[in-house]
């Protein structure tokens, strides 16, 4: 029973990470109709930045805040400089540019900080945080930080004029212009926010998966699965999808462990997590593309 709870808690923590990355993906998708394939590598690069800041003597949370701000600027710059001119380019061109960004971020991280796996500190005190036997200090911290960030974003979008303008720009850019909203800047801000949220996810997960340039690959795949499960056009759905997928992932691994213990037969375990994510992705895309909470996009004739 204790192990089940631990797996569940682990699933929650993982789910929090997936929720963040999935949210970043959905924010960009909703405003630009594009899937940011480079989201994982951008988050990883941000995490390295925070590592670098800490190795220069900054405390964890100071580095955290600074990195989030730097990532925000990075996102805005990428949108304005690289993506804006390609506004009307064919879809394949834009996908290629995303892959290009992916390659650049991944290899530059390796170039600046080497491919050696690094440890990443956890800011959550081991002693009195967490609930013994159920959820560890870092995992609890991850869930809390994620909930705080998501809460802030919710308040921003729901109750501030800028958030409202961004929602309007994403929903109907033409009409948003007709009420005076500078839609192009809204897109850039959306990218900035997505980059920031990705950075949060990266910094939170680095302690669990260790810091190395390829750390976000699997997580990105899971974030795709989460966004699809939740409905790729629905930010709240993406968050829900993240938690659902995180818990599901761990429950499947747990079930596999139990079966192996009971029967000695290994069917599925931690080594198959990416395959499970792939199956989720293919399944949702072919059977229910709108996910749980999204809307189906009709093909335009």
């Amino acid at each position: 029973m204790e192990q089940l709870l631990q797996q569940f808690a682990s699933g929650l923590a993982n789910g929090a990470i997936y929720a963040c990355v999935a949210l970043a993906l959905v924010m960009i998708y909703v405003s630009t109709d594009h899937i940011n394939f480079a989201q994982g590598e951008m988050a990883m690069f941000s995490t390295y930045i925070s590592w670098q800041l800490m190795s220069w003597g900054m405390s964890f949370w100071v580095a955290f805040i600074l990195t989030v701000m730097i990532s925000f600027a990075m996102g805005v710059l990428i949108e304005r400089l690289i993506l804006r001119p390609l506004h009307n380019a064919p879809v394949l061109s834009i996908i290629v540019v995303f892959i290009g960004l992916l390659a650049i971020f991944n290899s530059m991280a390796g170039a600046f900080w080497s491919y050696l796996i690094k440890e990443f500190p956890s800011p959550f005190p081991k002693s009195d945080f967490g609930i013994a036997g159920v959820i560890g200090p870092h995992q609890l911290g991850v869930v809390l930080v994620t909930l705080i960030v998501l809460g802030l974003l919710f308040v921003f979008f729901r109750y501030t004029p800028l958030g409202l303008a961004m929602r309007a720009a994403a929903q109907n850019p033409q009409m948003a212009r007709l009420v005076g909203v500078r839609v192009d800047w809204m897109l850039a801000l959306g990218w900035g926010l997505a980059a920031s949220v990705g950075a949060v996810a990266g910094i939170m997960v680095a302690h669990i998966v260790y810091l190395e340039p390829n750390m976000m690959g699997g997580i990105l795949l899971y974030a795709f699965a989460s966004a699809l499960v939740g409905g790729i056009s629905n930010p709240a759905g993406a968050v829900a999808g993240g938690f659902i997928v995180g818990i599901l992932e761990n429950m499947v691994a747990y079930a596999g462990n139990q079966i192996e213990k009971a029967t000695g037969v290994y069917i599925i375990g931690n080594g198959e997590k990416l395959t499970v994510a792939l199956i989720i992705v293919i399944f949702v895309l072919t059977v229910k593309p709108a996910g749980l909470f999204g809307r189906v996009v009709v093909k335009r004739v």
Partner: protein
Amino acid sequence: MAALLEVSGLKAFYGQTQSLYDVGFEIPTGGITTLLGANGAGKTTTLRAICNMVRTDGTIRFDGKNIRGMATEEIVRQRIAHVPEGRGTFTTLTVDENLRIAAYTRKDKQAVKDELERVFVYFPRLKERIQQQAGTLSGGEQQMLAIARALMLKPRLMLLDEPSFGLAPLIVLEIFRILRRINEEEKVSILLVEQNAALALDLATHAYVLETGKVVMSGPSDVVKNDENVRKSYLGY
């Protein structure tokens, strides 16, 4: 009295296809002008051209300032409000949010609040439905919301594209009455594009008739109303 909006030699293009060939007209300050014409004559395109939503050539001056080629949102910030075909309400946002978004560009919070109250005086129905999602409103209510939203921009000029489209006659009359009030009380000049020529000519002080991208007739609405060609083509008698 100098014209609020002066358009001359206006050409417009959808991609490679030319839609307007040589459109010219003037909107006097404080008046209601209507643009008539059959489907495809270029009425909607003209309104879009004013807001730079299509590629244009020619001259467009607003209050003496050249606005052709300015970004759409900057033109809007000159206080030109465009109520497009199909209303253009943000369907997933509430009535309240739809109105607030129009006040986004305005700094004076108190003035915005007063504005909101004034808008509800014109459109009491909207006040009742303030937290309702715009997409669930009826056609007439959405049209009212679109006009109310335009008012929130505190415009000097309001462009309306077929406000009567798809609405029941009684609602249309109500809306047109409100438009007249807005023109008189808020001092908003109006450029009205309408298929319903009779209603439009009743409301407007001046009229222009468009045919295949060119202005073929213009004048005070009484004169245009009684023109034989106009009567046959657009008024049905």
